[in-house]
């Protein structure tokens, strides 16, 4: 089985068909990442095409062919951020007013345990995109704050603040959900 580096060298030598092997290897990961961030299947499919065409055109600029996935992941995140940043400027999101955390009563915890995954999915889908990006990168891609900051070109403390607010929003929505259920 060829490594990413070998495939990339062959593609750079002119074997375009070898790029298919790279796509087969990573297109699912790219799709899932884009779908989790963009929350729409059609947008995620468009993003996958955009990402792989851009990766192909910039393949010569890939400094470490052995680390193809981190490189493609950055392209994917940038493509997704570009898509939603036209609609919601991230500055507005970072300047949201701080509110206090919900109390964290045992009732809330019980309700949250009972909440269906679909409901949580809706809550996450309702988050601002900038928050969704950091949540996906932190809890699905399992990246550190520093790595996330490098991916989205910001500071680690900004990442921490966005995650903090995202969780707070989710907790508040949970309270609303709890009120509706109880």
């Amino acid at each position: 089985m060829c490594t990413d580096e070998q495939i990339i060298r062959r593609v750079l030598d002119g074997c375009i068909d070898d790029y298919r092997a790279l796509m087969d290897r990573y297109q699912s990961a790219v799709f899932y990442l884009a779908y989790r961030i963009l929350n729409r299947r059609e947008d995620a499919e468009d993003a996958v095409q955009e990402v792989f065409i851009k990766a192909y055109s910039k393949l010569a600029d890939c400094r470490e062919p052995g680390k193809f996935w981190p490189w493609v992941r950055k392209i994917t995140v940038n493509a997704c951020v570009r898509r939603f940043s036209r609609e919601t400027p991230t500055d507005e999101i970072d300047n949201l007013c701080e509110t206090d955390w919900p109390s964290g009563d045992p009732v809330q915890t019980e309700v949250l345990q009972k909440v269906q995954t679909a409901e949580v999915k809706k809550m996450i889908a309702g988050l601002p995109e900038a928050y969704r990006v950091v949540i996906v990168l932190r809890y699905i891609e399992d990246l550190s704050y520093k790595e996330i900051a490098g991916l989205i070109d910001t500071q680690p403390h900004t990442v921490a603040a966005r995650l903090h607010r995202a969780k707070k929003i989710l907790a508040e929505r949970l309270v609303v959900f709890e009120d509706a259920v109880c």
Partner: protein
Amino acid sequence: MRCVEVCACLSAYADGELGMCKRAKIWFHIARCNNCTKKLALIRLLQLQTVRALSEPGDAPDLTDLVMSRLSGDVETSRQTDIEAIRPGRKWAGRRVTAAAVMVVLICSMLVVSRSNRSERSPVMITVLPPAKAPVTKAIPKPPASGQQTVAPMKSKPVQFTAALPKPDRLVKRRIGNIISKPLLPKSAYKPESAPPDQVAETKAPTSEWVVVVSVPVKAEPVANADTAEVNTTGHSSDSRKRAYDAVFKEVAESEPAEHNWRIDL
């Protein structure tokens, strides 16, 4: 730590992103504070549910054929130019070559300009004229001793030599008479008394003054405007150089039009 401070860090604490010191402080606070413990439990549960919710995005579509067709399939169509444009390395390869060529041309032109500027330091022709009534020497000159100057200002014909023109700014700062009065020749060359006795055997020491004629070759044409008597210094890019030559030509214009004589005291 107070509860407010702890709450601000609870998210990072749950993610394991805090330093040891802060983490220990929060740990001690949570161990004593029931309220913060509940909040931390809520955050951890939220994280768990989030991971669960995001872990089921559905089946991924197979877009390989679509992308590959966009990359290489439609070669014969009008998309050929687009494909060529996005081929790896091709797009920038041409630009890099162009940028390198432009850089080489720029560097070469800078070198040429600097060399031409250096060569623009035109030599000044200085002619030392003996006194008008100085007699012609008849003695046969001896061969000069080693290290002695071969110029013979005592002869009746003028002695000509060249000197590099100082930089224009120096020319502006210093008066041109000062430049000329610099000892371009050994002082003895100007003084008839110091000449070898056999060369000046039949000559008298001149009583009149010696004349130094300075001619400055400038690639310029005098401006027709007689009022200003300035010089059009085309070919000289620097303003200071222009002013310097203007100063020279102004002095020339104010003196005799054909020959410019500065008298110097020896």
